[in-house]
C-alpha cells in the first residue's frame, strides 16, 4: 500500500534523525557492553546503589547529540543487564513531511482486544499492576444509532463473548492532539508534541504530579501507582527512549503510536494485531498513504471535537449498513 515510500532513506540517517547511529549499532554496543558488564561491573554497581548519572540526566529536549548518545548507551547497558539480553535503545527523530494519523473503523471492530494485548507486549507495559494504553468501550448498538455518549460505554465486558449481539466497540487510546492539553499543563516540560504529531513523554523527566492526567479529555494517560512488573523473558528489546523503555514507579505513560516502530517505517503493533482490518495508519501528508485513503473517502469524526484539541486519531464507519 506504500504507507512509507521513504522507508529506505529513513534507515540510513534521514534529516531530523536525532542520533547518528543505527539500530544495528545499538544492538552491537549493547552486546559488547553487557559482555563487559558481566565481568567487572556488578561489584561497582552494587557499591553505588544510587544512580547519580540517571538522577542528574537532563530533559530530553536539552540533551546535545553527544549527551543523548551517552544516555542511550547507559540505558542500553542498564536494561541489557537487568533483563539479561541485548537491548537497543534508540531515539530516532521525526522526519520532515511526516504527520502521523490513525483511523479506526467502528463498523469493523469486534472488540476482541487483540490490539490491547499486542500493545502490552510491544510497549513493555507493566503486567502487574496491569496497565493498558488502549481501552475498548462496548456500546449498545441501538443507543449508538442516536449518539455515542461515552458515559454509556462499558470497558469491562467479557472477553469470550465478542462480538456480542447488538453491541459495537470503540477502542480509545492517546488521540495525539494537535493542541494537546496534557503538554500545556505539564509543569516540567516532560511531555510535548513532536513535529510528526506524536505526543511523547520523557519518562526520566516526569515528576509524577499527574496534572496531565487531569487535563487529558480521553483518559489516555496512565500512572505507575506501584512498581511496574515486567518479566525479563517478555521484554521487547527494541526500544525508543520516548516510547517503550520500561517505566519506573511514579511516572505517567501512554500510547506513542509505537514510536519505535513507526519512525522505522513499521506499523503500530495494534494495527498489525487487528484481525479485521479496523485499524488504518500512515502519513497524513502523503496522498498515497492508507490513512489518506480513509480521510479522502470516508466520513470521519474525532472524539470530543468541541474541546478543540484537534486529535490525529479519527473514527469512521467503513462499511455502511453492516449489521
Amino acid at each position, binding site marked *: 500500500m506504500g504507507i512509507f515510500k521513504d522507508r529506505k532513506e529513513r534507515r540510513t540517517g534521514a534529516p531530523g534523525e536525532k542520533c547518528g547511529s543505527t539500530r544495528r549499532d545499538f544492538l552491537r554496543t549493547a552486546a559488547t557492553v553487557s559482555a563487559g558488564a558481566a565481568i567487572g561491573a556488578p561489584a561497582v554497581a552494587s557499591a553505588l546503589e544510587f544512580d547519580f548519572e540517571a538522577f542528574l540526566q537532563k530533559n530530553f529536549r536539552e540533551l546535545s547529540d553527544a549527551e543523548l548518545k551517552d544516555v542511550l548507551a547507559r540505558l542500553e547497558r542498564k536494561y541489557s543487564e537487568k533483563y539479561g539480553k541485548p537491548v537497543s535503545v534508540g531515539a530516532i527523530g521525526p522526519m520532515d513531511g511526516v504527520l502521523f494519523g490513525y483511523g479506526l473503523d467502528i463498523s469493523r471492530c469486534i472488540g476482541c482486544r487483540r490490539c490491547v494485548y499486542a500493545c502490552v507486549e510491544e510497549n513493555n507495559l507493566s503486567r502487574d499492576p496491569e496497565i493498558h494504553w488502549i481501552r475498548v468501550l462496548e456500546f449498545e448498538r441501538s443507543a449508538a444509532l442516536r449518539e455515542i455518549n*461515552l458515559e454509556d460505554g462499558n470497558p469491562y465486558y467479557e472477553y469470550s463473548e465478542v462480538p456480542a449481539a447488538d453491541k459495537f466497540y470503540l477502542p480509545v487510546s492517546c488521540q495525539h492532539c494537535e493542541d494537546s492539553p496534557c503538554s500545556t*499543563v505539564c509543569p516540567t516540560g516532560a511531555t510535548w508534541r513532536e513535529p510528526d504529531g506524536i505526543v511523547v513523554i520523557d519518562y526520566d523527566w*516526569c*515528576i509524577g504530579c499527574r496534572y496531565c492526567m*487531569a*487535563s487529558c479529555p480521553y483518559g489516555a494517560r496512565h500512572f*505507575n*501507582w*506501584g512498581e511496574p512488573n515486567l518479566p525479563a523473558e517478555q521484554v521487547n528489546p527494541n526500544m525508543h527512549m520516548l516510547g517503550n523503555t520500561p517505566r519506573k*514507579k511514579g511516572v505517567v505513560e501512554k500510547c506513542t503510536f509505537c514510536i519505535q516502530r513507526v519512525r522505522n517505517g513499521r506499523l503500530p503493533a495494534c494495527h498489525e494485531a487487528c484481525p479485521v482490518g479496523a485499524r488504518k495508519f500512515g502519513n497524513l501528508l502523503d496522498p498515497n498513504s492508507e490513512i489518506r485513503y480513509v480521510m479522502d473517502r470516508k466520513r470521519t469524526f474525532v472524539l470530543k471535537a468541541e474541546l478543540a484539541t484537534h486529535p490525529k486519531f479519527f473514527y469512521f464507519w467503513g462499511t455502511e449498513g453492516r449489521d
Partner: protein
Amino acid sequence: MENLKLFAQFTRGSLIAVARGGKPYYAWLLGLGVLIGLGLVAYGDQLSRGLITTNMRDQVSWGFYIGNFAFLVGVAAAAVVLVVPAYVYNWGPIREVALVGELLSVAAIVMCMLFVTVDVGRPELLWHLLPIAGTPNFPHSLLTWDILVLNVYFLINWFVVTYILFMAFTGRKYNPRIVLPIIFLSIPFAVGIHTVTAFLFTGLKSRPFWHTALLAPRFIASAFCSGPALIFLIFRVLRKVGGMKIADAALFKIGELLAYAMALNLFFVGTEVFTDFYAQTSHSIHARFQWFGIHGESSIAAYTWSALGFNVVALIIFIVPYFRRKLNLLTLGCALSFFGIFIEKGMGLLLPGFTPDVLGEIYEYAPSANEVLVGIGIWAVGALLFTLMVRVAIAITQGKLRVARA
C-alpha cells in the same frame, strides 16, 4: 552590625521560649510528635511501594492530598482580611489577630507545599521545576505559576511577622514605611494564590465541573469563610491556654466578616446548582453525582448535603445579630463554617470533577488509611510549626521576651 547582634539574641530568645513550657504544653508537643511520626511511617510506606498505598487510581488521579492543598491555600489567603484593618487602618483591637493570622498563613503554606510534595510520584525529581537547573514550563503551566505565587506569599508573610516581632523584641515600633508597602503587596498576592489555584482546575477543559469562570470567585469567598473561622477558633483556645489578651471586639468583628463571606459563598453555590440543574447538559452529570449520586454510588452526596447544612446553620448564626453576639454560639458557627468549607472545597471539589471520569467510568474514591495518616501527619506539622511561632509571638507581645539591655 548592631541589628545582626540583636537578631542573634532574638533567635536565641525565641528558641528558649519554645523549649520551655508547662506540662500541658509538652503533652501537646508530644501528641503532635506522635502524629508526625505516624505520618512519616505512612509516607515511608508510600515512598517504597508507590502511590498504590493511596486509593487514587487513573480514574480519580488526585484525591485527599490535593483536596487538602486547595483548602489550605484558602486558609493561607484569608490572613490578609485581618491584616488590612490592623496595619492599614490601624484598628487597634485586631492587631494581635492580624499577627496570628499571618503566622497561620505561614503554617498553612508550609502544609500546602507538603501536601503537593506527598502527592508527587517522584519527589526526588522536584528540582526539575526550578529555573536554570530544571525546565519549568512557564508561563504555560499553571502549576509553575502556583509555585511562584505561593513562595512569594510565604516570603511576604514570613518577613512581616519576623520584622514586627523583632522590632517589638528590641522595644521599638515597626516602621510603617517598611510594613505598609509589603502589606499592600500581600493583598494582590493573597487573591493571587487563590485565583491561580482555582485556575489550576478551571484551566482543564477536559473536566466540565471545574471549567467554570465561577470557580475562582468561589474559592475566594470560601477562603474568607474557612480562614477567619479557623483564626477565631484558635483565638478562643489561645485566650484560655496561651494567656493572650484579645478584645471581644476583635472576635465579633470576625463574626461580622464571616456573615458577608458565607452569604456570598452560599449565593455562589446556589448559582452553580441552578446552572447545572435548570438547563441540564451531559456535563451536568458531575453535579448530579455531587448532590444525588449516580448509578447507586452516592456516598459523596451525604458529604455535599452535610456541608450545605453546616454552612447554612453557620450563616444563620453569623447573620442574626442576637446569635452573633453570643460568643459560644459564634464559636459553633465558626466550627461549622470551617468543616463545611473543608468538605465543600476538599473532597467536594475534587471528586465530582473526576467522577465520572473522561470516558464515563465511575470509580468511587475514598482515601486509604495510609493516605489519611500522611494527611494527619502534615496537619500535625502545621500545628507544631504554628504552636512554636505563636509561643514566640505571645512571649514578645506580652513583654516576657525582650532584648537584654546592657
